[in-house]
């Protein structure tokens, strides 16, 4: 099994429509403080950011710029606009990652951002960093996020019953979705051979 032996290092990634740049917490916090007032956008990350100051936001973001964590800002190429962020937490002993995403610019909701961005990030994790598995957590009422995990080949592996509290105070299950490196490579191989057949 391939496993990273050194601390992971973030690099810039690019997709058809987006550029993913490792964040620098001070400038990122300055540019995105207005995001923190949108409760709904942050709901799935379970960050309660309402009323946060620049200082508080920076302190929070700073955690994701530390060793064994990668935080990419998501930039839309078309408008050169910062629309969200993607987080990776790496566990050196197991070679596993936990992932999370926030699309703060609502005009991009429902436009396939997560599938495109996360595809590039998973490719980087599994190919360059030698990660063994990726895990994502999502509350059971976040149908769009569940869809994204399904499309990328993640399997639902566990449910923590009534673990999540929604914005309206209701409780719901927290679901774990997992993807192994071998599954990612097999899925990618299947897609590539489909493309070759079409050509």
């Amino acid at each position: 099994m391939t496993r990273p032996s050194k601390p992971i290092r973030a690099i810039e990634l690019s997709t058809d429509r987006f550029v993913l740049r490792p964040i620098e917490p001070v400038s990122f916090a300055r540019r995105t403080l207005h995001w923190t007032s949108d409760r709904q956008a942050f709901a799935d990350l379970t960050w309660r950011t309402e009323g946060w100051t620049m200082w508080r936001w920076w302190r929070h973001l700073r955690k994701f710029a530390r060793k064994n964590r990668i935080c990419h800002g998501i930039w839309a190429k078309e408008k050169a606009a910062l629309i969200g962020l993607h987080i990776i937490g790496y566990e050196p002993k197991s070679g596993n990652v936990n992932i999370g995403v926030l699309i703060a610019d609502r005009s991009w909701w429902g436009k396939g951002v997560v599938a495109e961005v996360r595809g590039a990030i998973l490719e980087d994790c599994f190919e360059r960093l030698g990660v063994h598995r990726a895990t994502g957590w999502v509350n059971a009422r976040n149908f769009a996020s569940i869809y994204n995990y399904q499309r990328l080949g993640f399997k639902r592996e566990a449910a923590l019953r009534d673990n999540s509290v929604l914005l309206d105070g209701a409780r719901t299950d927290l679901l774990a979705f997992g993807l192994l490196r071998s599954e990612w490579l097999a899925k990618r191989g299947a897609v590539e051979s489909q493309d070759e057949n079409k050509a």
Partner: protein
Amino acid sequence: MSAPDDRDIEAARSLVARALERPLETIPCDGSLETIPAWDSLGHVRILLEIEAETGRMLDSDVIAAMRSVMDVARALVSGARV
């Protein structure tokens, strides 16, 4: 749980077509989120909300996590209708 019959599958096709705002003939019985191009994330949200509206109850997280095809929709409609 009973397996969906032809009428259940037609109801599921119709629900998916309505949620995705596509003609019924573009939604095959064996269609899924991988094979129906219009089945995107917002469409997925609409499909699940339509099932809940149709059955009058919130879907269980196991059903939500497994929902990926017209047949899954049919099964959810059958089980929801019989609770």
